[in-house]
């Protein structure tokens, strides 16, 4: 439910959201700018129209004044006045005496007050002005010297703020360019965030991952520095813990040695055998813990080794250690296969995988082959019950043991698979577990060839 409520129509990424809001803001600014521009344009249009109309109206008046009375109609028609002006000669005025004046805006726009000035020859004997309803504009009745009237009906054409061929194209190009610029800038701006996320991810996998570059804008540099300091503190913390673990393992060697020697003086053979077995187990647990803590794999130099011989050694040693299972411990693969690896670490990884297969699966069939891209592929099959898919990654966590294994007294430290995976990953490979369709578990390890 919470998930559903939190779903939003906003883009998922920070960059997307920033870009989104920037584009919205840009649109608003564009819209405001355009409106201002349009209003301005409308004003200008009106002014130009008014000038033109005023001029034409004056032409009409001149024609009426200067032509003989019988030719006035003809002259007016010859003027070819625009639609906005209707002119007629009449015995009666269109505007009656004492009516309301036209709106003051019209007087200003058309400079109507200038009608009664001008040279006396052309000056109207009487001017009557009134509003033009409906449609805006004005009406004027101008008395000619012979007593006839020139009646004018002037209309303002409606404003056409968007009337321009290039306007739409210009608008689209401008907006498009701005959006592209925003996307580019946001991507650049978000780069440090992506780098930080990548660095955090790397740190999660490897505490000793290289530090972040502390260059760039000050906020970015501060964040990078803080991140690096955090990484350093984590590294120190891990190192302290590791050292503690190693110190404990180190200190336990003396008491174990003493106990082994004491056991040699025990008279009860059975008890002595059991005690020595317990001590062996303790030693194995300590050495596994120390191998995990000190990450021996990283310290050992890599050299060319014969992987096939290594597999045989691991298989043979496992068979020697568990003669009762010897027949189920097999190797299948080439006689020889050379690859660069850290021999002691890799042997430990394979021994752990084989030992795991034997302990939980009662068999260990090791198969060696070369896969695609020259990768060395190692499969270790067992005949056990497998692992529930949900748990299959969890077993690689340190000190994680499945409930069944705890109850079954199978022993072990819960570090075997962790160490194996650490070692293989340090080699640039990996190990995963797979349930086989027919039953049984297969550990698939890969190693660069």
């Amino acid at each position: 439910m919470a998930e559903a409520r939190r779903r939003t129509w906003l883009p998922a990424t920070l960059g997307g959201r920033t870009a989104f809001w920037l584009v919205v803001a840009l649109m608003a600014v564009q819209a405001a700018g355009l409106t201002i521009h349009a209003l301005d344009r409308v004003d200008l249009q009106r002014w130009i129209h008014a000038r033109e109309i005023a001029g034409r109206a004056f032409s009409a008046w001149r024609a009426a004044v200067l032509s003989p009375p019988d030719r006035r109609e003809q002259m007016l028609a010859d003027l070819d006045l625009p639609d906005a002006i209707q002119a007629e000669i009449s015995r009666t005025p269109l505007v009656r005496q004492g009516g309301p004046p036209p709106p003051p805006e019209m007087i200003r726009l058309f400079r109507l007050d200038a009608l009664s000035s001008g040279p006396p020859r052309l000056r109207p004997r009487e001017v009557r002005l009134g509003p033009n309803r409906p449609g805006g504009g004005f009406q004027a009745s101008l008395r000619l010297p012979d007593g006839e009237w020139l009646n004018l009906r002037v209309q303002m054409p409606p404003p056409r703020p968007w009337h321009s061929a290039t306007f739409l194209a210009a608008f689209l190009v401008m907006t498009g360019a701005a959006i592209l610029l925003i996307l580019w800038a946001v991507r650049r701006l978000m780069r440090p965030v992506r780098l930080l996320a990548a660095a955090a991810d790397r740190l999660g996998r490897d505490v000793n991952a290289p530090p972040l570059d502390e260059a760039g804008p000050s906020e970015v540099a501060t964040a990078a520095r803080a991140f690096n300091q955090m990484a350093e503190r984590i590294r120190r913390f891990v190192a302290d813990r590791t050292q503690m673990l190693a110190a404990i393992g180190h200190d336990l060697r003396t008491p174990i040695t003493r106990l082994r020697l004491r056991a040699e003086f025990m008279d009860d053979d059975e008890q002595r055998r059991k005690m020595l077995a317990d001590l062996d187990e303790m030693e194995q647990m300590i050495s596994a813990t120390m191998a995990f803590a000190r990450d021996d794999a990283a310290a050992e130099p890599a050299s060319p080794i014969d992987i096939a011989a290594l597999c045989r050694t691991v298989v043979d040693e496992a068979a020697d250690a568990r003669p009762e299972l010897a027949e189920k411990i097999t190797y299948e693969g080439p006689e020889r296969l050379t690859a660069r690896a850290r021999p002691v670490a890799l042997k430990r990884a394979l021994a752990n995988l084989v030992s795991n297969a034997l302990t939980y699966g009662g068999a260990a069939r090791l198969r060696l082959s070369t896969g695609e891209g020259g990768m060395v592929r190692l499969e270790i099959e067992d005949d056990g019950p497998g692992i529930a898919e949900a748990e299959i990654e969890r077993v690689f966590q340190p000190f994680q043991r499945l409930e069944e294994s705890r109850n079954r007294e199978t022993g072990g430290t819960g570090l075997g698979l962790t160490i194996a995976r650490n070692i293989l990953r340090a080699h640039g490979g990996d190990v995963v577990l797979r349930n086989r369709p027919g039953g049984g578990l297969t550990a698939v390890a890969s190693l660069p060839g």
Partner: protein
Amino acid sequence: MEPAPHILVVDDDREIRDLLSRFLEKQGMRVTAARDAREARKLWPLGRYHLVVLDLMMPGEPGLDFARWLRSQSEVPIVILTAMGEETDRIVGLELGADDYVAKPFNPRELLARIRAVLRRANGEGPSKEPPAKVIRFAGWTLEPARRRLLNPDGAEVSLTGGEYELLQVLVERPNRVLTRDMLMDILRGRQAGPFDRAIDVAVSRLRRKLEDDGRNPTLIKTVRGGGYVLAATVERG
């Protein structure tokens, strides 16, 4: 019957010193124990020791320095006790001329077996009178005793089990000499505590496979009629 071998044990832990002394005495040896390198230097001229068991991890003078000093004084065999996982100490120790090593926490029986094996070699059975070899070459293969590793003709490391390594070492130390199964068992017994109880033949066949020696027609480790093996190769030590 030879006189009981006299062992000098140098270890800083009193309990271990005492217990180890008692344990070795129970096995028929004479033991003198020293707390550290200083005491061991004092004790050295006072007795004739057949072997020194030396803990490398001691307070005061480092065990490796004492081992170096000891080598300058005598050819006495040295078995070093190293810390688990301290590879470099072990390698340096063996390169200094220690005869064998046991990792702590050690198994007393394994230590006893190593001591016996080293004593047997020192008694003229092996070529250990010669300075220890850093590398041993045979038929293109290279054995590095200090690192306990075998390199194939291409220079790649070929992993060996403990038993295989011990067997190979015995064979290369006695090239072109027929070693009967009984002799091999006798030399190897106990050198590797547990697993080597398995038949010699199994170990030989495994070793042949690792050395790419055809088991049906071996040329390197030949089977001798009547039950024995011989390493048919020229061995170069260096």
